Structure formats: C-alpha cells, structure tokens
C-alpha cells in the first residue's frame, strides 16, 4: 500500500488563500449566464464590396467621394509598384537580386490598404507588398537592398511606423495586434493595418490574433489577401470554406469581403475599417479577393502545379487597367497620361536601381552589432574569432 501523502500537492507553494484580502473591486464578473435560449441564432451576412467591376462599370450608388488628386496618386502608386516589380524580376533573372515574391496583379490590395494610413498609424506587411511599402515611405533602393540580402535594407526608415515584412508566414500578425493593444491603452487615436495571405490564415497564430483583437477591441484591420494560392496549394486544399471573411465573424471581428482588384472598393472598405478602429469600435477583417498572377517567388515554377490557362481570365481583371480606363473615361486622366506615367515610373525605378548599385555594401564586420544593446563578453569573444576569420580571408 503506497498511498499516503505527507503534504497536499502544492502545499509548500500554495497556502490556503484568504479571500477577504483579495482585491474584489477589480472583479467585474459578467452577469450570470441566463437560461439556455433554444432559438436559432442568425449569423448575419458578409457584405461583398465592388465598386468598379471588371467590365469597367461603376456602381453609381456606391460612387466614392475621393478627390481627383487622391485618385491620381493612387493610380501612380500602382503603376510604380508594377514597374518596380518588373525591374526586380529582371534583376533577379540577371543574378543581381535574391529570391523574392512578385506582387504583380495585387496592386489594388496593396495601395488600397495603406491609402487611409497616416504617419502615426502602423503598417505590418507580408513579404508581398512592394507597392504598400513604397507608399509608406520605404525607398525603392532600400527594398532592393533588403531583397538583395543586405541587412541594412531591413529596418524601416526613420519616421515610418512599419514592422519589417515577415518571412515566417503569419508570425507578424500577433505583434501587429500587440501594437494596436498598446494604442488602445495609450488612447492613441490611430490604427494598425496588417496583411497576410490565404495560406497564412491557416496558422493558429493568426486565429489567436483575431481573438486577442476582438477581446481587446484593438484598433487593428486585418487584410487577408486571398490570392487563391499558397505556393502550389490552391485555396480548396487550404481551407474548408472559401469565404475567409467568415472566420472574422467566428471570432467576433467585423468582416467584409472586397474585390481586391478594384482599388475604389479597397480604398472605401479600408477607409471605413480604419475609421471604425480609430473610433474605438474594434477590429475588422477585410478579405481582399485577388489572384496571384505570377510566380510564388522567383524560385518557383507554377507551370509544375497549375494550368496557366487559369491566369488568362484574370488578365482582364487587372486592377491598373480597370482603374486607368475609368480615370480616362471620366476625364481624370488624359488618354496619354497612362503611358507618360509608366515611363516616369520606369525612370524612377532605374534611378533607384542606380542608387542601390552604388550604395549597397555588404558589411560582414557588423554581423554581431545589433543583437543586444551591448554585446555580452562571451559573444564578444566569438566576434573576435569571427573577425580573425575575416582577416584571414582578407575580407574588409
């Protein structure tokens, strides 16, 4: 017979608690749950927003109230993003750029989601967000430096409230939510936008972020860029329901589905979601429906796993073409403006490339410089050994 204890479990560490000394005031127990209500519960509807459809027709009832200037700025940002993207691809193919993820076709998602943000708002992008980062104030040469594998490219520029993009899928969504939790505590009337893909949405950490945001009523807007693919995995193998917005409803997060190739819809939905957040009404999930037109990354060959004919119909849904022809049709752009802007953007990109080429510099001697605020002695010894290796190899 081996039963018989000398002590209650935890007795040494957990004495009987004197409830009377506990701070009851802080307790705000919810009202006692009532009787079970057997009536079924309506989950409501998910709104789907499109303003300018793929045939270029504008939904008059939804005509948005943006200034012509804003519309032109947004158009140019999309054009610039695409020019940047094309140049990056060329550089990569010439061996001048590391592996990166082309953004082509997702420009409306990108620009639409950062359009409502001011400098005191925060943005936390995935790795497929060139246009958005440029809009936020990242120079193109910085982005080139980053993707070419130089550490100097990673820190967000001074004054830009962005997290560095996330390579580990979905891992940035909780920190972005944490920023919003900080804002709520500081009564800071700004908001956070964080984006991630349809694949990323399978990560448990993203679900946790939705829940934290909902509980906290944190001022964060989640943008799921549902482009149908996660490398070779189509949405049908990624998710049990293709309405990703419904997950927001599940977690008590206001949700909307948007035509991610319609910049007017994106601007409208994001503007409203950010305003809701800033007003303290809590988070929103925006499911932006779009399509990955190109390679997953430059190390990927989609012809292996998808019939490229499925890309064809999406060409006519090009977010730039659709918007540009509407701008021209409504007299906001001249018919020749498009090409003029494209040329100017191309020029800008080339200038950035030139700056990148003349400035980018590997700094192997700085490898240990940023891990801790001041380097611990043991690590300093490792650094000296590393520097001796560089000396031996004649590396500056």
């Amino acid at each position, binding site marked *: 017979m081996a039963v018989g204890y000398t002590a209650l479990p935890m007795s040494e560490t957990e004495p009987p608690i004197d409830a009377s000394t506990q701070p009851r005031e802080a307790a705000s127990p919810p009202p006692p749950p009532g009787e079970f209500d057997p009536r079924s519960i309506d989950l409501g509807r998910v709104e789907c927003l499109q303003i300018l459809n793929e045939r270029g027709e504008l939904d008059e009832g939804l005509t948005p109230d943006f200034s012509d200037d804003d519309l032109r700025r947004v158009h140019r940002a999309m054009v610039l993003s695409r020019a940047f993207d094309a140049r990056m691809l060329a550089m990569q193919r010439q061996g001048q750029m590391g592996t990166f993820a082309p953004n082509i076709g997702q420009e409306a998602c990108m620009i639409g989601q950062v359009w409502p943000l001011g400098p005191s708002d925060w943005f936390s992008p995935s790795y497929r967000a060139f246009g958005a980062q440029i809009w936020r104030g990242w120079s193109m040469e910085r982005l080139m430096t980053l993707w070419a594998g130089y550490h100097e490219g990673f*820190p967000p520029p001074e004054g830009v409230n962005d997290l560095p993009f996330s390579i580990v899928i979905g891992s940035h969504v909780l920190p972005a939510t944490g920023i919003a939790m900080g804002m709520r505590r500081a009564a800071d009337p700004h908001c956070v936008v964080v984006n991630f893909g349809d694949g990323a949405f399978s990560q448990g950490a993203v679900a946790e972020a939705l829940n934290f945001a909902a509980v906290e009523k944190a001022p964060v807007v989640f943008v799921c860029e549902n482009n149908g693919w996660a490398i070779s995995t189509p949405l049908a193998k990624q998710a049990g329901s293709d309405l990703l917005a419904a997950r927001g409803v599940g977690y008590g997060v206001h949700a909307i589905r948007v035509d991610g190739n319609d910049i007017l819809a994106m601007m409208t939905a994001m503007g409203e979601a950010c305003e809701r957040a800033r007003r303290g009404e809590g988070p929103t999930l925006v499911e932006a429906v779009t399509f990955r037109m190109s390679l997953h990354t430059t190390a990927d060959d989609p012809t292996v796993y998808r019939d490229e004919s499925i890309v064809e119909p999406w060409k006519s849904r090009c977010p730039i073409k659709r918007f540009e022809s509407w701008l021209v049709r409504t007299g906001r752009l001249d018919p020749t403006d498009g090409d003029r802007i494209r040329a100017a953007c191309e020029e800008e990109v080339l200038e950035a490339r030139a700056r990148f080429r003349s400035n980018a510099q590997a700094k192997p001697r700085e490898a240990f410089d940023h891990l801790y605020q001041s380097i611990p002695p043991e690590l300093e010894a490792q650094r000296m050994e590393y520097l001796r290796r560089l000396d031996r190899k004649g590396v500056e």
Partner: protein
Amino acid sequence: MPQRTMVEALNLALDEALGGDDQVCLMGQDIGVNGGVFRVTKDLQAKYGEDRVMDSPLAECGIIGTAVGMAVYGMKPVAEIQFSGFTMQAFDQIEQNMARLRNRTQGRFPIQMVMRTPYGGGIRAVEHHSESREAYWAHTPGLKVVIPSGPRNARALLAASIQDPDPVVFYEPKSIYRAFREDVPDEPEQMELGKAEVARSGSDVTIISYGAMMRPVREAADDLAELHGIESELIDLLSISPIDTDTLLTSVTRTGRCIIVHEGHQTCGVGAEIAARLAEGGAFQYLLAPIRRLTAADIPFPYFQIEQHFLPDADDVVAAARELMEWT
C-alpha cells in the same frame, strides 16, 4: 529588513516597476483578480487597473506575440506564462520575434520585455508542470536568461530584467516560491544581469548551480565541510545567458575540480555548455579531475509519486565531490 518569501519579493519588484514607469504592464492568464495561480501578481490589478495588469486569453503564443508588439510600440511588457511547460506553445514568437526583432531592424525596435514563468519540479504537480528547459533559451541567440535562487536576488534581478533593454526570459524556481524567507529591503534594489555570484568560498572543489538546486547544493557544502573536511566553492549562476565564464574560470583554475548541478536535462543542457567552456580554454590545464554533471536524466519529468527520487540531491553532490577529491 522585512522578511519575504520569493513570491512576495517578486510581487514587490512588479509593484515597484508598475509604480515607477507607466510603460510597464503585466499580461498573462489569471494574473488579474486571481493574482496568478501562484499569487505573484496579487493585488496588482486592483492597484494599477485592468489596462496595466491584464488577463489574457488562454493562448501563450498570443501572449508573447502581442507583448512583442506592445514592446515595439514602446511599452515594457512583463508577460507571465503560467508554467514553463507551456512556453512551447509560444516558441515561434519567442525565437522569431522576441529574440530577433531588434537584430532584424538593426536596433530600430529594441524589444524590452520580460517573459516570467515558474519552472522546475518539487511541487507534486501533474505532467508538463515541472519542466526545466532553460537550455532551449540559452541556445537561442538574442535572449537573456535569468534564474534567481532566493527572495532577495529574485526581486533585484526581476527589477533589473524589466529595465534591461533586451528581451529577458525570467525563470522562477517554483519549489522555493514559499519555501523560505529572506531579508528583502523596502528600498529598491537591483543586481547587474550576466554576473554569477560566489555563494561560498572554498579551495577544494567548485560546485556550480542555480535556481532551486542551490538549496541541496548549500546543504552538501555544509556536509562536505563538516563531515569530510572538503571545502567547496559554490557558484550561483543567476544568469544562464550570458554565462559569466570569467567567474567560473577563476574558481575552477583554483580548485581544479568542478561539479555542475541543475534540474534541466543533461544532453545539451547548461551543464554541457559549462563543461565545454572549462574543457576548452582557460581551465583545461588546471583540471585535476574530470568534470562532473549532476542533472536530470534525459527522460520527461516523472509522475509525482516518484518525482522525489528524480533530481540530484545533496547526497549526490557530496558523493561526487568525494569521488573527485579521490580521483587520480
């Protein structure tokens, strides 16, 4: 000086940190009204409000991930994980963001935050509640790892950890949460991070340990001196990352004998690292006997009916020291 248990001393450190700096906030499961399952955060929510001392949903990854975000925003979160066994749930956020975001942004976003968590065996708890996996964090670049051994250094080290600009993993030896009291002054006190402490001087053998294991080690040192005439030098690591190699070398080059005692598993544990550092450089030619590790075996912490036999005890330390003294 008031006598305090480690729980009370930690509570004091948190209270002072919250009172002294508006950016400090606490988060974790059941830390609010309940004051934490071990009462380390007792009364703090009542004093500082729900925005400073917040009950988190049951998601460790979420706790650490959002704490990182709050640190980016400029706050100084102290996140509690209810038991260290559940830090596994947050491993990705710890390794990928908490430890690396400063480096990734070249210092633009320092992550000034603390992850506190009770660790170790000895309280007859259920499975997954007695882990000592501090070696995971010691192996993870970018973190500091701190483990106190008594009320007074617990308070001083936690205070320093909260003010440290780098992310700190703070492991609390829960078996001594309330096991004894010490003088802990009312006045704020801090200890420098990264330094080991010589807890007893001696010339025959160096015994290196930390956390709750310092208790059996002290007991062994008394026995060794009184019963066997062996004078041991005790080193209390206090910091597991970085490890204060200098203090270790100074002692071992003098004694020529070394025993390392910890609750963590043996393979790739903290004892392995210390043994390697001694065998590598400064101490090699001074060693008079092999290095001895007394650690938990490489099996999961056993169910509580047999746990009292699992960890090395004072007698093991005495026996090892005597063996080393006789080694030729």
